[in-house]
């Protein structure tokens, strides 16, 4: 019955892209800023290694660059810079998690650069709770829920907010105009 109720008032309160969360909803976990984070497994299109990435000049740190994904140009967001202020250092373990978003009726694929991809976990509903109002060092708008797995807390990210195309695009414009001001 609970499922049905959520499906009916499909307001997507958790920013999980309209996916109805059932008890055994699975999450892909990864580490960024030394913390454990996750996004819904159904949001993940694929995970790739970091090969060659092209920097886009005049952009803020959170835009790490663009990659060639089978002939398409895909922007990559540095999750460390996006959530905090630490640009992720590229290591052997760094990965790009590809996520697709709906933007003005089009599907936009974006990459998230993370320090390391860990595992896929089932986090049942009763182990997920609302983010605290304060106390996290990450802007709470990026967090949809906090999940608990054994003794760890896992930040369940709100992909719509983390990869908000409008916000990123506005930031690019702002970053660029701060470089070039009318004097």
């Amino acid at each position, binding site marked *: 019955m609970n499922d049905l109720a959520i499906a009916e008032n499909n307001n997507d309160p958790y920013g999980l892209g309209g996916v109805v969360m059932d008890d055994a909803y699975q999450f892909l976990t990864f580490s960024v800023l030394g913390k454990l984070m996750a996004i819904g497994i159904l949001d993940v299109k694929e995970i790739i290694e970091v090969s*060659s990435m*092209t*920097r*886009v*000049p*005049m*952009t803020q740190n959170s*835009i790490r660059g*663009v*990659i*060639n994904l089978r*002939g*398409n*140009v*895909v*922007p990559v967001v540095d999750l460390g810079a996006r959530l905090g202020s630490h640009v992720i250092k590229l290591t052997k373990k760094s990965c790009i998690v590809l996520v697709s978003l709906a*933007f*003005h009726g*089009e599907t*936009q694929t*974006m990459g998230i650069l993370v320090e390391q991809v860990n595992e896929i976990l089932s986090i049942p509903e009763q182990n997920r709770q609302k983010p605290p109002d304060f106390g996290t060092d990450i802007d709470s708008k990026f967090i949809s829920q906090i999940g608990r797995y054994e003794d760890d807390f896992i930040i369940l990210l709100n992909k719509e907010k983390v990869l908000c*195309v409008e916000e*990123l*695009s*506005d930031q*690019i*414009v702002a970053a*660029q105009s701060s*470089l*070039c*001001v*009318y*004097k």
Partner: protein
Amino acid sequence: MLDDTKKIFIQESEELLEQMENALLEMEQVPDDAEHLNSVFRAIHTIKGAAGIFGFDAIVAFTHPVESVMDNVRNGIRLVDPDLVALLLKCKDHTANLVESISDGQEDISEALLEAGQTLLDELNPEQKSGALDVVKNKRENIEVSDRKNASDDNWVISLDFKSDALRNGLDPLSFINYLKRMGEIVEIITFTHDFPCWEDMEPESCYLSFRIALLSSASKEEIKSVFEFAMDDCELRIIPPRSELEKYLALLEELTGEELNKLGELLIQVGALTEQELSNALQVQSSVLSDDAATQEVKPLGEILVEQHVVSKGVVDKAVEKQESIREKIAQETQYIRVDADRLGQLINLVGELVISNAAVKLLVEKHDLADVQEVVNGVEGLVENIRDHALQLRMVQIGDTFSRFRRVVRDVSKDLNKDVELVITGGEAELDKTVVEKINDPLTHLVRNSLDHGFETPEERVAQGKPKKGVLRLNALHDSGHIVIQIADDGAGLDTKKIRKKAEEKGLIYAGQELSHREILRLIFEPGLTTKDTASNISGRGVGMDVVKRNIDALRGSIEVDSERGKGTLVTIHLPLTLAIIEGFMVGVEKERFVIPLSMVEECVEMDTNEWHLDKNSHYVNLRGQVMPYIKLSEFFGVNYQHGRRGRESLVVVRVGRAKAGIVVDRLFGELQTVIKPLGKVFQGLKGVSGATVLGSGDIALILDVQGLIGLASAKASDVKTLESV
């Protein structure tokens, strides 16, 4: 299936309506031009016919009276005057609305729309009723004088033989006959099956049927013929007008035998086309060939057969000839053009793009492994790929003329609203550019044209007072210039008031009071958001949104826009646009490890920079290039590149030109020309200036494409001295 045909109908209607509008606007200038008249008639007529076949009754109901009015105009019954043209333009708009409502998938036309249609028709009709109907009546009377007494009025005999491929070609004989009912009443219909083979040979997909139809209708021959317009190629059609010469009917009978002959004979008698006498006479003539026929008929003595000499009127002949010509024209056009889905062309161009990239990859490998013999082949392939690319892109090129001629209506309507007298002169309409670009410049152009009409042109009185000709001239021109298309919108109106622009810009805080600006820089301010020199906003322009939107649209197309104006003389807006958005010739340069592509069409020359000769210091961002002051952008500084290995070798200066502006770009390495398949960077980067896209290199890496225009803009904004960027 239905949706597909509907789509075709909608598309064709739109094209026809566009033709109609152009012709109407021409008619306004030259009212007596028969060609335009016919073109309007043909358009509305074809739409009506097609709408009928698809069962869009509302369109048929509306277009039919319009067509009748046009017919009257053609026959000289009604004269063309500006009011009529205006009304017909409205009718065109209404038809467009009807078509649109179908394309929206609405089954029922809304009440409001129907009402609007009725109002238009009422406006069209009163005159026609008094004038045209009388004439029609007179005609009818003339005919009746010589009419045969025993013949009932207006019975047409239609002989319709479908070819065996008719069904296979998607025609449904029944739908044509159903549609025929709209023209009048079907008095009698005979279906002939004499072509029917024996059952074993019968192919279910073939059509073996032919029909003889007696139709009671006041429609013209052309109108009846139009019912079968779509089936012309797949059937043999003979239409015999009422009261035709006897021979024509007899000719119909000739090819028939036995049972069928009798049936048709009866039909003809019934509809009054033939008397029994005539029929039997005809049969007697035939009986020498077909003796058994005569036996089945009751032979009457040879009487005096009254052969009617209703010679078809001259008008009808003219119509027929014209119809034939238009069909011939159409066939000729059809052989010249193939309608192709734009998506398919897009796919083809994408594939060609991938081919270009793959080819580059192959080339890279061949060079790497130093395979001299393969090299030759690869070069050959490269040449072919280039050819294919050029041809593929050519497929999507369309002439800009169609876009231009749409503005005839805008100019006409807006100038009428504003009580201004403006003539639109179009030149260079044959210049071609990519369809995707054409679609996107429509809005900016509309803005500019409206702006010019509203702000630019003075009223006729003002013009006369200033010693200018009463009629203003708005020019739209297009030309090709080094891989770009240049579109110019010129008016001979009041020109821009630089003082006013300055004042407004100061009010808005765009510049500070007393800031030194050149004439050109002040003019450029009109592209800033929120700036309008109009004190009151009208529904046409003056809200201060528009020019900045225009600029943004043009920027998005990697184009540039410049304005030039002289007070009292007029304004010239020049737009530079790339010919295509898919593949360009690029010039690759390198900075440290990063690679960038500059559109080759913008590159003027490359100069190697010898540190001894060239004086580069941090304060002055210009060099002396053969005595010319050349501002430059040092890409490494500009893009904040970190050099990991200290000083590098010699730098190079790439001289680029955008419109009138020239600048140098200092880079570390030159890689040379490269076919560049443009990949969009995506929505995230839409606000980013200086980089317009990306391309995938043969190695799989991505190189960014520089937006030279944007870079120069950024650099001049960054530079403390705005004047660094010299206008040549």
